[in-house]
C-alpha cells in the first residue's frame, strides 16, 4: 500500500542536504509551508538556494532560515516587504545573493520547469532594468524576453487536505504558488491541515494529483491572524 504520509515535519525534511535548492510556496501569508521551514531550521541544512515570492516573514520559517544565515541565494519577486527584515539584513551585508524576477515571470518559469519546457518568451520586463543581460527577441512584432525554467531539489508546499497517495486539495487562495511548485521539484513535501482517507477527495476537487507529492505531514494550524501590514507589501 502506498503511504506517503510521515509522522512529523522533522521526518519530512530529513533528507534536505547542504546546498539544496528549495521552492517554498505561499503568498500574502496564505498557503505558506511554515512548519516545514521551521523543521528545516532545526534540521540544519545550509548554503541553500530558496525560490519564494517574498523574502520571508519576521523571524520564523523562511525568515528564520534567513536569520540563521542558512540561505545563500534567494530567487524572488517581492523580497522587500517590511517583514522580510531578516533577509534585508543579510542582503545588505552581502551575505545573500538575490535574483529578482517579476512575479509573473517567476510563475511561468516554475511552471515551465514543471511541464518540461526549455524556456519561454514573456513580454514582461523588456525595456526595463530587469531585462539586463537577457535575450530579447521580436516575435510577430512584439518584443519578448527569454526566461529559463526553474526547477528545484525540493518543494515545500502547504495544502488543506491530503491523502496517503499524496493527492492534495487547497482552500481558496492557498493554491497560489503551491500548485505550480508541486510540479517543479524532485522531491515535494507537503504540510496539510488534515490527512483524509483515500476517496474522501473527489477526483474533481483534487488540485495537486498525488503523482507530484513525495511526502506529506499533518500539522496543526498555527493560530494568529494576518495583520494589516504597512502599505507596499505584497
Amino acid at each position: 500500500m502506498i503511504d506517503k504520509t510521515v509522522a512529523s515535519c522533522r521526518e519530512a525534511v530529513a533528507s534536505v542536504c547542504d546546498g539544496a535548492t528549495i521552492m517554498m510556496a505561499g503568498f500574502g501569508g496564505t498557503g505558506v509551508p511554515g512548519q516545514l521551514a521551521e523543521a528545516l531550521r532545526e534540521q540544519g541544512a545550509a548554503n541553500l538556494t530558496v525560490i519564494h515570492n517574498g523574502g520571508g516573514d519576521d523571524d520564523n520559517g523562511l525568515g528564520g532560515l534567513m536569520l540563521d544565515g542558512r540561505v545563500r541565494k534567494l530567487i524572488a519577486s517581492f523580497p522587500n516587504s517590511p517583514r522580510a527584515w531578516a533577509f534585508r539584513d543579510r542582503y545588505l551585508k552581502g551575505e545573500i545573493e538575490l535574483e529578482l524576477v517579476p512575479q509573473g515571470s517567476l510563475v511561468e518559469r516554475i511552471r515551465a520547469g514543471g511541464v518540461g519546457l526549455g524556456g519561454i518568451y514573456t513580454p514582461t520586463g523588456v525595456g526595463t532594468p530587469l531585462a539586463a543581460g537577457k535575450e530579447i527577441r521580436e516575435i510577430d512584432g512584439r518584443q519578448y524576453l527569454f526566461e529559463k525554467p526553474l526547477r528545484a531539489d525540493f518543494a515545500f508546499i502547504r495544502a488543506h487536505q491530503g491523502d496517503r497517495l499524496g493527492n492534495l486539495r487547497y482552500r481558496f487562495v492557498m493554491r497560489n504558488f503551491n500548485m505550480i511548485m508541486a510540479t517543479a521539484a524532485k522531491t515535494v513535501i507537503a504540510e496539510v491541515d488534515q490527512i483524509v482517507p483515500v476517496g474522501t477527495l473527489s477526483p474533481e476537487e483534487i488540485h495537486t494529483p498525488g503523482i507530484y507529492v513525495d511526502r506529506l505531514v499533518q500539522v496543526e494550524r498555527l493560530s494568529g491572524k494576518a495583520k494589516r501590514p504597512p502599505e507596499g507589501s505584497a
Partner: protein
Amino acid sequence: MMKLTREGIAYRVACELTEGCYVNLGVGIPCLVPAFLPAGREIFIHNENGTLGVGPPAAPGAEDPDLVSANREFITLVPGASVFDHAASFGMIIGGHLTHVVLGAMEVAANGDLANWHVPGQKVPGVGGAMDLAFGVPNVWIAMTHVNNKGEPKILNACTCPLTAPRCVKRIFSDIAVIDVTPGGLALREVVPGLDPAAVQAQTGAPLSVAQDCREMDVPESFNGVRLIA
C-alpha cells in the same frame, strides 16, 4: 476646490469604470476605488493571489485565513467570484484579459512610460507583480498625486527612475486633473474646479495639450482637499 483628497481621486477613477470591467488595483489610492463603485454596477476586482471578484473586506469575526489579499487583508468574494492558482492569475494578467489596472506611480512620462517599482537608492529591490500588470493589461490607469511630497512634478518628459514598463500608461487620474496619454502626447481632459489648464501645466513636467472637450471635473465638494500649493 483646488485639489482632490486621495478618496476624491479614487472616486473619479470609480466613475470611469463601467459595468463588465475586470480590474486589478495596486496598493495605495487604487485600493480606495471599490468603496466608490455604485452598488449594482457589476465590476470584477482581480487580485494577484488568485481571485476574480474580490468583495469588501471581511467583517470582524468573519475572517477566513485562506481568503487574504496580496496585501494581506482579509477579503470576501462577491457572487460569481472564482479562485485559481498563480499560473492562472498571472496568465490572466500577462495574457491581456483584464480590462484595467489602476496603479500608483512615482513618475509617468509623456509617452506613457511608467516608473513605480524602484526608487533609486532603495536598498532592497522588489518588483512583485507590477511589471506584469503594466505589460499585460490593456488599460493602465494611474491614480496619484500630481506632484511628489517635495512638490515636484511626477509627470515628466522622461522618467528618471527605472521603468516598470515603457509606453504603457493610458490615463492619469491625479488630484488636480485627468490626463490621457495619446500618440500625440499628453492631453488634458479634466481640471479640478478652481484651477485652470495653465495651473495644471505649471505642475506638470511635460507639455500638455488641452483637449477640445476639456472640462471641469465633476466631483462632489466632499472630496475637497484644497490647500495652497507652492
